[in-house]
């Protein structure tokens, strides 16, 4: 049971499971930042996605309905954010903070109201049996040793995320739309001169980002777990922001960063366990290390990785500069 291949399979599976929502939200955030808008409030959008997916699934009994609801909710949050920053020229960071607060508050409100409502009706607040998603094994692929169980026994949204990544990567690198999006954040005046509507373009990117964040929320609440808890994203949105920078505003870098982060986290959790359960004396000696040092491992590892890679990238130049801008 405790054999090495088993462990590798387990770790890679946990990694993919944990990385999926970060990748999903990160792809959206990446597109938004490439177009020149940083949304530090994705945490709020994710939470709104969580609660929307949970309540709608709870009421209708259909996970798909919940997922769609989460995406629409994320989009609505994006509309508010776009209205404030792209059209209202509000500072993106401050507005993002407000969006975060809005998401936290609204989701908490809705959760409270939902609980009261269900309890008054005498229903459980838990999801109806079988209404959330469970892992979806892909018939033949799952039988590949190691890789199969790790990558092909995941939740529906994980596969969709893979498709989305490929699609967005292709879009960014092989289509004119990709050029436009990158130019929106790097040289909006070039877009303007080419007849592209800068603010409209940015709004569209934000809508996409919001949809992704909403879906990531749904992943957390109706797939990975079938639960909602106030603030259940626990800072994941901020980690995603860091990972976009970590990936130097490139999709493969972002995905790599998310997987790396997920891996170190599951490694950390396994290590925390193994120091008590394993016979290995080295591992056993770790019992004296305060557990907080395990918890900080992913962050330390990220810093170390960056220090070794040692490459800086300035990122899109027009982040947090509204269009039309006064910048030279």
């Amino acid at each position, binding site marked *: 049971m405790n054999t090495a291949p088993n462990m590798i399979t*387990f770790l890679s599976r946990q990694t993919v499971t944990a990385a999926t929502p970060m990748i999903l939200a990160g792809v959206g955030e990446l597109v938004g930042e490439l177009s020149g808008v940083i949304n530090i409030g994705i945490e709020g959008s994710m939470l709104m996605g969580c609660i929307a997916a949970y309540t709608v699934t709870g009421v209708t009994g259909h996970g798909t309905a919940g997922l769609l609801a989460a995406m629409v909710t994320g989009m609505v949050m994006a509309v508010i954010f776009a209205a404030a920053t792209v059209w209202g020229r509000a500072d993106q960071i401050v507005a993002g903070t407000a969006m975060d607060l809005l998401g936290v508050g609204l989701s*908490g409100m809705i959760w409270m109201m939902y*609980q009261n409502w269900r309890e008054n009706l005498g229903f*459980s607040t838990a999801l109806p049996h079988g209404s959330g998603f469970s892992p979806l094994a892909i018939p033949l692929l799952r039988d590949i040793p190691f890789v199969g169980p790790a990558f092909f026994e995941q939740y529906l949204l994980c596969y969709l995320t893979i498709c989305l990544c490929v699609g967005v990567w292709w879009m960014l690198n092989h289509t004119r739309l990709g050029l436009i999006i990158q130019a929106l954040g790097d040289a909006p005046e070039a877009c303007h001169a080419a007849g592209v509507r800068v603010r409209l373009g940015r709004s569209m990117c934000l809508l996409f980002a919001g949809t992704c964040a909403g879906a990531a929320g749904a992943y957390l609440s109706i797939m990975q*777990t*079938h639960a909602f808890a106030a603030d259940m994203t626990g800072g994941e949105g901020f980690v995603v922001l860091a990972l976009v920078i970590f990936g130097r505003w490139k999709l493969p870098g972002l995905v790599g960063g998310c997987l790396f982060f997920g891996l170190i986290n599951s490694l950390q959790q396994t290590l925390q*366990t193994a120091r*008590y359960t394993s016979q290995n004396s080295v591992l056993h000696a770790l019992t004296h290390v305060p557990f907080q040092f395990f918890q900080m491992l992913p962050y330390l590892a990220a810093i170390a990785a960056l220090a070794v890679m040692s490459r800086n990238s300035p990122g899109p130049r027009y982040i947090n500069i509204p269009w039309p801008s006064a910048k030279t």
Partner: protein
Amino acid sequence: RAAAVKGQLRIALICSGSVTDGGWNQEGKNAILAVKKKLHAHVSILEHISPVRAVDVMRSYAMRGYNLIIGHGYEFLIPATEVAAMGGKTRFAVSGADTTKPGVLTLNFDLAQPSYQLGILAAMLSKTGKIGFIGGEAIPSVVACYRGFAAGARSVNPKIKVAEAYTSWDQPALSKSQAQAFIQQGIDVIYQNVDAASRGVFEAVAQANQSHGAPVYVFGSNSDQNNNPTCSRYTPASAVIRLDRAFLRVARAVQQGTFKPGVATENLRNHVCIVVLNPRLVGSVITPAMQKAIARAGRELLSGKVHVKP
């Protein structure tokens, strides 16, 4: 609206997290609402108060003539002491702390005792000789759980391995992956005290039981989590704090003028911290031998023959 009736008891409950967390804070809210019903008291509840803000809000309640302010969490002890020192008629109680301070009644929930009993049960249930504990954070009532749990298990099987991990109160996904790491390492009884994140642990256990041969069990804490909708068939017991009893006792004391600062250790003896077995599993999963062992441990704890350092 709720205009203060003259002579009505006014109680404020201050929570550190959200009262919808399905655990510590929600229990606190329910308990205080029960008190409200019983004593026809006026009750005000504040959520999401960090220790940074505690003095401010407590003083504000005190100034508006509240009779009793309950800080629901160890982190309110020092702020409560500070506000109590300012004088006034308001009484202060802090639940979940493990030390005393002047002018404040500390409600020390000694979950170590029921956890000791759960440890015995876990050791008897475990086939692999590995059990584990997941806490939301290393706070007194949680650490007490771990200590009692480990001591109880070792009293049955001195060589048993007890893993310990902390995640967070509000991230079900994180506690789920921690539980999965436990299960992957061969742990087959998990004791959790993670409030809102407990759903994640239940999920992990439910999933493991779908695919595994050998069953994996999970214990609840704080409230009776035995009939959780996710895996009640694998939740043999919970360590429960009956907050309503504790709060009611404090409120009564305030009403009758018998309130005394100090420490009130709430444990098996006064039936505040107890083990609740899952009635549907008694007789099947929980064998009569186990029941007997739990009962004996209870007697030993009460008689002081066994003492768990909280």
